[in-house]
């Protein structure tokens, strides 16, 4: 699964996710990626989220919307809300899960509960980083 989240100069948030499911998945099985509020969600003033992992649990927990709701209704930070969903809500299910999210202030978080997650981000000013595990590569500064 791949995904992206962004905040533009007009203050608009957006999220996108695309996937092939998983190897040997049942024919006709639909995961969380195309389910709005599960694997993909964006709401201006709150956050944008794209997830990756065992989709059935992302659907049951409405993961992406849950993060937005925690922020909007409980006042949690982006990092706290995303971390709680990945590391607490999904923990009892013992499934692999991760996500990237961006807040209305441009904050970025990328929690995961597996050994690693392919991820990347660009800081204000254009410094670009990619990572898989704890190893982070500072690739370049973009114009």
């Amino acid at each position: 699964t791949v995904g992206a989240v962004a905040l533009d100069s007009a203050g608009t948030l957006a999220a996108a996710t695309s996937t092939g499911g998983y190897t040997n998945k049942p024919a006709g099985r639909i995961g969380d990626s195309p389910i709005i509020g599960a694997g993909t969600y964006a709401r201006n003033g709150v956050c944008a989220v794209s997830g990756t992992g065992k989709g059935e649990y992302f659907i049951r927990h409405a993961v992406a919307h849950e993060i937005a709701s925690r922020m909007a209704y409980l006042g949690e930070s982006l990092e706290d809300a995303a971390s709680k969903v990945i590391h607490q809500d999904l923990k009892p299910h013992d499934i692999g899960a991760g996500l990237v999210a961006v807040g209305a202030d441009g904050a970025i978080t990328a929690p995961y509960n597996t050994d690693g997650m392919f991820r990347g981000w660009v800081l204000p000013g254009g410094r670009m980083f990619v990572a898989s595990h704890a190893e982070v590569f500072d690739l370049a500064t973009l114009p």
Partner: protein
Amino acid sequence: MNPTALAIHGGCGVMARLDLAEDEWIAARADLGRSLEAGWAVLTAGGSALDAVEAAVVVMEDSPHFNAGHGAALNTDGEHELDAAIMNGADLAAGSVTLARRIRNPIRAARAVMEAQEAVMLGGPAADAFAAGAGLDIVEPSYFTTERRVAALSAMKRHQAAGTAAKASEAEKHG
């Protein structure tokens, strides 16, 4: 001008590095960088977040190193069924496609569904037909297949036959 921000993911699990040969990881890393460059170029040109996330995802769909588009996993029938979604936080507009088999870049189809405003999700042959009607690139299903995914499906079938499916690695499940 307000701050801009961009983040991407290319899947999680053990396969995120450990199951990759060094040259594969270098290539995957380069494609992650190209994805960020594509999205960031949109944002720094004053483009929309929607255009940025679409541009970033298209790069990863076109890469053989990730489970989406070219390089997607195979289902139990040895076929590809692709899912994608996109959402605009400004007005909560959203579009998605599911179980698509012939759309080269499913994220572009999801965007087209969103902009058509007649549905949020289209599935199966209807999604493929909609994408074709929208003028998007349509490909043979074999376009999505890579040797890595064929090997992964074979390994999963062997695990199933041996009753050891639970021991399959993340690479075998997700590639």
